[in-house]
Every structure is written in C-alpha cells, then in structure tokens.
C-alpha cells in the first residue's frame, strides 16, 4: 500500500511539496509477560475464554499491584490498560468479601463505558454484579441501595465533591476501601487537576478516619512526568509501568504543511482546502477514514465540499458531531462497521466513549493542542492486522509549524509535563474549608494541605472556621461545596447562558478573553455569539450562531514584581527569576478574522483586570542590547518577538494552552531597571506553569530559537513570532533581532 499511495498523492495537481515528513512506525510483535503467581480459576478461566494472553506491561502492573504498590500505567491507548487494573481488583475483591473499590473518571460518559466493561466481566465470570455508577444521573430511590451494597463504585470528581460531605452514609464503603482507580489521569492538570488533587486528599483523609488505606492505580496517556504527576495528584509514591508490550501494526504518519501562496512567504493556503483534498483522495482510494476538524462548521463544510467531488460515493460520507441522539449514533456506528460509510468528518470534541471502532486512516486538521490528544486521535486508525495511515495537517500556528520542521520533537521522548499546583492558595483554602465541613480539621491534617497554619488563621479571622476542642470546624454561611468549583479558581466566575441554560462557567479573566460582548465562542465544536457580558451579575448571554469568522481580543499589559521566590544569575547579567507578580490587563478592542484576514475591529469597554499571580522573568544585560543596536537591529522588536514565541512554545513543555499564560516585554522595566521579558500564569495565585518554565527555561529558550530560526518566513509570521493576542497589533516585531538575542543568551548561559 504505502509506496504506491504516496506516489499517487505526489502526482495530484494540488501537490506542492506539502509532505514535510513521513514517520514510519514499525509493526511490533507482542511481548507477553508472566505473573508471579497464578490467578484464581475464575479469573484465569475468564482470560482463557476471552483469548487474552497478558502482555508484559499488564503482567508487570498486576505483579506490582499485588505487592501492594501504587501503580501508574502509561502505555498507549488500546494497550489493554483496563484489564491490567480490573484483574487485580477483581482478584482482591473476590478474596476479601468486604473489600471495596472506587473508580474515578473525568466524565459521566466514560464512567458509563467502564460500567459496561465491568458488568460484562462480571457476567462472563459468572459472579454477581458488584459494580455500580453513582453520580448525578443515579435516581434517588436507587442511591441508598448502591451505597450500601455495591463493592465497586464508579463516579466522577464533580459528584464526589458533593458526596463526600455525606461520608457517614458511605461508612462501610470507606471502611473497606482497598483501591482507588483513576483513569485518564493526564486529564487532571491545570486548574481542574489541582482541584482534583485536593479532592483526592479530602477522600484520603476520610479513609484515614474510617481506618482504611487504599492503594492507587492510575492509568494515563504518555506524559513527561508520570512519577511527579501521580505523586502530586495523590500524595503517594508510585511505580511507573510504561513499557508497552502490546501488538502494534505498522503505521505511517504524514506531516502535511499547506504551501505558501504569496511571494513574501507569509501566508499559506487554507488548511481546510488541504483537508478536503486529502479526505477526498482517501475516500477515492477506498480508505475508510475519519477526519478531525476544529469546529462543527468546518466539519460540515468539508463534508459538503468533499461530496461535490466524490461522484457516486458522495453518500458514503457523513459528518459526526456531539449532540446526536443515541439512535443516530448507533446508526453511524453500524454503517461504519459494514463499510457502508467510507468517511466520517468530526469535530475534535468526538466523545471518547463512542464506539466507531478502528478505521484505515485518520486525518487531523490542525494540531489538537497536545501531543497526547494527537495520539489519541491517531489511535483511531489501525485495525491491528494491516498498515494504517495518519495525516496531521498544520495550521499557521507556531506549534503546528514547529512540529512540521522538527518532527523528532513530536515523535521523540515525551515533552509534555502535566502540571498540578498544590500551592495555589485559592485552591488549597477552598478545599480546606470543604474538609472542615467533612470532619473537624486537626493538626495531623497538615500533611494534606500546604499553607496549613496560615490558611486556618486567615479563615478563622473571617469566621469561616472556628477552633474548638474537637478541631477546626466550618462555621461559614454557605455550604463549602457550593463555594468551591472544581473548574475554577477565583470567586469571580462568569456563567455563560444560552437559551436559558448554562452553557459553561469560566473564571473572569477567561471570560474577558472568550466571552466579551461580540466574541465568538467555541463550545463542543459549535459556535456561539456572545451578546452581552454582565460584570455585575457575572453572567454572559450567548446565542447559537453559525459564523464564518472568529474573534480575538487585544489587550495591553502592565506588570509589577511583588517578590522573588527564586533567582538564578546566569552570567553576563542574564538573570532568571520566578516569583509573585501583580498583573493589570486592559482589554481595549477585539478583531474579527476569517481564516486568513482581519475583517473588522471593535472597541471593548471593559474595566482593567487586576490580579496577583506567579510569573517568571528574564532580564537581558545592556551588553546584548548594545550589540543589537550596533547591528542596526530593532532591540524592542527582538524581545517582543521572543516573548510571543516563548509563550507559543510553552505548551510544548507545560501541558496547557497558550492562553493559560500571558507575557510582556519591556526594554526598561520599572522594577528591574533592565530589559525584561515576563511570562506569567493567567490564573490568580498561579497554577504552576511559570514555575515549570522557570525550571525548564533553557530548553524553552532553545526550542524558541529553533522555532524562529527555522521558520520559512522572511520577516516573521503567525507561525513564529506573531501573536493573536498582542495588544500592540504585533508591533514592533523583529525576527532577526530575536534570533540574535536568543543566540547571545544561549551561548552565554552555556558558558557558565
């Protein structure tokens, strides 16, 4: 297949050297493992009947779990992670009649999927059902029974947050809790992850109270820091199981870059065109393909354009989006299975649980934001017995373009760090008050909460907790679980309402970004227009609207250093610091853009946003500035460009969006009295990103240099130094100066 296929592509009239790279991921024979001791007959019989032979990583996991270790399994999707934890859990629960287990999933859909898996196992093993979901959808009348009689409970963090204050109703479940299983653990990062980490500590505290000490089993996509992440999420130490022994078919991964269409080499052809061309080509070659796009609108458009070119197979493709009725979904699934449907175009928000099986090929239109998501989407291709094909089509975005030029960064060791911050005082204090309403807080609880003493004192001052002979108990006027929201940090949360229903909630700063009046909001692949942002009531009104443009706010930033937490002098007057900063952001206007051009601009009358957070900054010595000016280059343009590019590259290291951080560059900053580039967390109190960047800044600088240096443009473009958020209309920006300054810094740091 492959060579002929690639040759055919190259013969197409729309082919203009778009293929930047083809990675051949070789097929691999499975490696099987051996258990330290055999499984009980019920379980071994089950495996035999299902034709399952344990891969090495599954056996390793089971062996470690049996030894009482906390385990995190980071092998790829479809490597059989679920078996790796269900088997030892069932073994333990069959041996000890009282033992219980808690399975945590990030969404209800995933919880339901896993219930299905467990029930099937129970049925096929011939044991009584012991698993149940307990969440917002569980009917009232069934709840008591489930609490009392279920041995495996599946739930999600939002539900658990509400249920654990009622822990006395779960007494016997907690007393005998032997395992806590956290699946999709990489999703617990950033604000949500930090909140869930605190929730886990509250649960452990309750377990301690009831005398149990559960073992953790985590399952995660591949991240750069599995030990750290698992430790931060739970407070425990883990064994990492990462050597995948599962069978793998050969996979070809194409990196496809739309060609330049202007002479100045700044604008590329629309990736949507490219997507359509490739999709049509796949279908004509009878490759059953799923195509992931950035929005429902795009999905509809691509489907429509493709149909125009598919002649008599035009009816064998369809769009797929969230919000289909179960009946409609099952129909699509069926038609795919019998090869009636050859192609599906979907948004990136394809529910993970959907059973569309595996296809011949995947097209990913636009880098999904994380390497993990990219692999998860790529994982949809591959039937296990023949070659499969994945194509990533780059947008005009720094990360997309960076990978195009440096595919080794994508295919090499994992870079992305999942970040959890256990020290954001907003988050910690919020969960501390929740804890104080669950059980009186005692001195020993210090092990669960950072900033313990100071937080309690501050809370006591505000009459939120009272110190009593029994411990600190909650005395505030609202229920703590109503005050603390797992997706947000601050108390200023904006609720976005569509058609009388809550669409989503977001912190105020994010609302300034995404939900200002006139903003186009993307939610689960659908576009909405924000009609109004009411700052007093903290609500925004949005209407569903199909629009063909998107909006970007423009803001200017000023920053003040409050204190320095850590400091490095890297020679030649180059200083790197991290600490608390105060940020003020003025959102003064927003632009309307279609894919390739600005079609309008509107003013924004929003009051300045002012908050304290954590940031890192680099000061650049006068010598370097002089050298730049001597060469007639624009120094200010250079540091400004570096700031933009660093922010664009940050997600490569700290799993976040580029919107999770902000930055500012100044040729003479008031606090440092030197040229300085700042990068700060866009979240009050910080969320750990800047701190991570501070630790990794050399790597970030190097990647930033590579990005700018290797970009095919002449003087800078949206793929390297232009930022969509720049409040100064992306001026001044100077590519040459940026490269020079970065080289100077990197060389001098190496000298040290």
């Amino acid at each position: 297949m492959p060579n002929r296929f690639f040759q055919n592509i190259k013969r197409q009239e729309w082919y203009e050297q778009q293929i930047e790279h083809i990675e051949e991921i070789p097929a691999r024979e499975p490696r099987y493992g051996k258990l330290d001791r055999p499984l009980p007959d019920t379980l071994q019989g089950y495996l035999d009947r299902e034709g399952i032979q344990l891969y090495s990583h599954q056996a390793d996991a089971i062996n470690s779990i049996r030894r009482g270790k906390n385990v995190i399994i980071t092998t790829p999707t479809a490597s059989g992670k679920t078996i790796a934890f269900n088997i030892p859990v069932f073994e333990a629960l069959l041996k000890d009649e009282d033992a219980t287990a808690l399975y945590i999933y990030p969404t209800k859909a995933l919880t339901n999927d896993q219930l299905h898996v467990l029930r099937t196992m129970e049925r096929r093993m011939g044991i009584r059902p012991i698993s149940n979901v307990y969440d917002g959808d569980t009917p009232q009348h069934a709840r008591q029974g489930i609490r009392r009689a279920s041995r495996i409970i599946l739930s999600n963090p939002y539900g658990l947050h509400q249920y654990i204050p009622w822990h006395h109703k779960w007494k016997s479940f907690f007393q005998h809790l032997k395992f806590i299983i956290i699946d999709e653990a990489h999703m617990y990062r950033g604000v949500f992850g930090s909140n869930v980490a605190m929730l886990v500590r509250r649960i452990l505290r309750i377990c301690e109270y009831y005398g149990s000490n559960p073992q953790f089993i985590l399952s995660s996509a591949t991240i750069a820091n599995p030990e750290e992440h698992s430790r931060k999420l739970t407070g425990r130490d883990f064994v990492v199981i990462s050597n995948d022994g599962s069978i793998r078919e050969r996979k070809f991964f194409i990196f496809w870059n739309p060609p330049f269409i202007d002479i100045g080499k700044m604008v590329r052809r629309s990736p949507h065109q490219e997507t359509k061309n490739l999709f049509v080509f796949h279908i004509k070659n009878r490759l059953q393909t799923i195509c992931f796009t950035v929005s429902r609108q795009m999905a509809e458009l691509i489907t429509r354009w493709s149909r125009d070119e598919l002649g008599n197979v035009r009816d064998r493709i369809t769009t797929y989006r969230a919000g289909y009725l179960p009946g409609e979904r099952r129909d699509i699934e069926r038609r795919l299975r019998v090869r009636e449907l050859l192609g599906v175009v979907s948004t990136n928000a394809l529910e993970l649980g959907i059973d569309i099986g595996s296809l011949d090929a995947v097209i990913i239109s636009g880098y999904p934001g994380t390497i993990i998501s990219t692999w998860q989407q790529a994982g949809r291709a591959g039937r296990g017995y023949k070659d499969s094909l994945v194509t990533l089509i780059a947008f005009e975005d720094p990360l997309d373009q960076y990978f195009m030029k440096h595919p080794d960064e994508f295919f090499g060791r994992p870079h992305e760090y999942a970040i959890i911050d256990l020290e954001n005082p907003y988050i910690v204090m919020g969960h501390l008050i929740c804890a104080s309403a669950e059980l009186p807080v005692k001195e020993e609880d210090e092990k669960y909460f950072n900033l313990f003493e100071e937080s309690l004192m501050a809370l006591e001052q505000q009459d939120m907790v009272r110190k009593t002979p029994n411990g600190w108990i909650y005395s505030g006027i609202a229920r703590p679980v109503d005050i603390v929201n797992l997706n947000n940090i601050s108390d200023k949360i904006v609720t976005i309402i569509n058609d009388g229903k809550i669409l989503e909630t977001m912190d105020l700063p994010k609302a300034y970004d995404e939900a200002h009046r006139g903003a186009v909001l993307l939610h689960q692949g659908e576009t909405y227009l924000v009609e109004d942002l009411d700052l007093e009531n903290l609500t925004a009104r949005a209407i569903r609207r199909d629009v063909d443009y998107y909006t970007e706010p423009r803001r200017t930033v000023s920053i003040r250093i409050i204190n320095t937490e850590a400091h490095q002098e890297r020679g030649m007057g180059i200083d790197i610091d991290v600490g608390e900063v105060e940020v003020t952001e003025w959102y003064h206007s927003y632009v309307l853009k279609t894919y390739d051009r600005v079609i309008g601009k509107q003013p924004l009358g929003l009051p300045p946003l002012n908050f304290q957070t954590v940031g890192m900054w680099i000061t650049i010595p006068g010598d370097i500035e002089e050298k730049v000016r001597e060469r007639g280059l624009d120094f200010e343009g250079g540091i400004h460009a570096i700031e933009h590019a660093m922010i664009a590259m940050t997600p490569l290291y700290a799993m976040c969006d580029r919107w999770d951080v902000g930055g500012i560059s100044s040729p003479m900053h008031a606090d440092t009295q030197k040229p300085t580039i700042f990068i700060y967390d866009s979240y009050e109190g910080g969320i750990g990103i800047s701190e991570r960047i501070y630790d990794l800044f050399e790597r970030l600088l190097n990647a930033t240099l590579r990005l700018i240096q290797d970009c095919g443009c002449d003087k800078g473009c949206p793929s390297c130094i232009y930022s969509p958020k720049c409040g100064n209309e992306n001026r001044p920006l100077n590519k040459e100066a940026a490269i020079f300054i970065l080289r100077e810094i990197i060389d001098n740091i190496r000298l040290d």
Partner: protein
Amino acid sequence: MLDHIAKRLKDKAGRIREYEVIETGDGDMEMGRAGGFMPTHIYGPEYEHAMRLKEQLLQEYRDKSLEEVIPGETISNDRGTCYYIQHKHDISIQKADLEKSRQVICSNLKLIYGIGEVRERELKQQGYHTIDDLVRHPRWRDEAGKFLDTFESRNAGTLHDLLWRRLPRSDPLLLYLAGIYDKNDLIMFDIETMGLFGRPIILLGIARQKRRRINTYQYLLRDIPDEPGALWEFVSHIEENTALITFNGRSFDIPYVEERLGFYGLNASIEKPHFDVLHFARRAFRGRVPDCRLVTLERYLLGIERKDDVPGVLVPEFYETYLKTRNPGLLIPIIEHNRQDLITLSRLFSRLYDVWEDA
C-alpha cells in the same frame, strides 16, 4: 495574601444566599406548591419586618448576658457543654391507644403480602373483615398469624418497617401505629441550624409528654464549640422504644442530626421509627390550606399568629449576628420560634388523629 483570599471566600459565601427575597406587593400567600414546604423564599414585607426586629433586639439587649435574657442553665456531659432551656406546657398529646390502633390497622387486609385491592374486597365480602379473621382462612392463615405475632410483640421497629413498605408515606394508617407506643416514648423534635447542611446545628429542641403535660427541652449553642455537647444531650433522650415525630424531618432534621453526629465521630444513631407530620398533613389538609408550611397550618388550623417571629430561613443570619456581637437578644426569637414549632408540631399530631378518627 491569604487574608485577602479568606475574605474573598467569605464574600462569595455571602453571595450564595440559600433563600430568595420575593418582592410581591403585599406578601400574598403562595399557591400550594408540591414541594413547597422547605422555605426557600421569603416575602419582601416579612424580610423587612425581620430586619427591623433584628435592629430592635440589638438595641434593647445590648450589654446584656445570656443568662439575664434567657432563663436556663449551662450543663455539661462527656462530649461537651451547652445551654439548657426547659418549659412546661398545658397541652398533651392525643393519639390512638393500643386497642384502637390494633383495630384500625388489622382491618386493612392489604397489609398481608399477596392481598391487593381486589382480593381484599372479595375477602371482606366473604366475611373476613380483619386480619384476625384471616387466621381462619386456609390460604392466608400463616401470613396473618405472622402479622399478628409481630403486632403482639409490640416490636415497633419491625411493625413500622412492615407498614412503611406497604403503605404510601402519608397513609393515615401509619399514624395509628403511634398507638403501640406509650406517650412518653414519643419524642417530637425540631432543629435550628446555620444553613442547609454542612454547618453546625445551633439549637436542638425536643418536646415530650411527661405525665399529662408536654415539656420542651431546648439545647442551645452558646458558641460553636457547644455543638457536640448539645448533640449528646439530644441523643441521651433516645431510648430503645423511642419513636420520633418531626415536621419534614425525613428530608431535613434527621439526616442533619446524623450528619453532625458523623462529623464529630459521636457513635450514636437516631435511626428510630419516625412519624413525619408534614406528609400526613399534606394528605389530610390538602385543599383546606393554601400551603403546608408549618406557620400556615398553624394559622389556618390552630388560629395562631406569631408575633415578632424570625422566619426559618433567617435564623442563620440572626445567629451569625449573635456570634459577632454576642448580643443575646438575637437569640430570643430563635428560641421562641423553635419552641412554638415544637408546640405546634404536638398539636398538629394530635389534630391529625382527631381528623382521621372523625373520618
């Protein structure tokens, strides 16, 4: 910075009001809502009145001590301390006696597993009017015998369970179960709290019949550390044969007390047979009253108008102000409100019995 965050958390808590102030013109009555027993809203005029009352009390009782203003005493037990207030009242509970309750309950053949509407009618036509009669029936004699044994054993718990399972919550028959208890086994209780769960109970009130009069025993938190002591006093009333009577206790008072007991690790349970007057009242008085709030039933059925009452939803605020100012005047309406709730509860319980007797 932490102080700043603590303040923000507190402000946020303040914005989450657990009730709504409805500005209607003149506080006209709400239409009977299906679930409208949990006061989650308050009318403009009521709210204004309560705020004025708060001001008055703050003025009048400034610089006074708790003991001066509210007669009672500080008591202590293994778990702590609290403030104890007792009153005697010249009313007593009316209820079915054992004979009566047996008679009424046993004439309901549907209580036997396997007998539904149709079969009951048939059997009654055949001359089997009571469960005692069924002992003669070849098919039902065993079941009937078992039922009567349970009744004889006066095992309130088992009987209660049996009936709870077969009957709707509001069935009058459940009220007749009260007949198997002695009057002083019946404990009426009502709590005042700092909000809707997750926060301390600030007052536990009990009413019990002693000889021919109803006594109220109220356990107040002088301050939050008194909570375990007050809970323990409450729990000490619960005995083997206790049955509880509440108004909406099923959704509120009982789970609330259990939650707080669990919170302090006080190894006690209040899982006893329970009569929730709200459910009975809804069934008995539907159509005769605009809604089933306790104060409404009180007004319409007992002719009582409370003066200077603090509405239930505002109790947390009054208590908060007390904690901040230490002005015991704020406690007066809370204690009074609770006491009146207990009295009304007793009287409604008795009234229900009358109503169903007459029916």
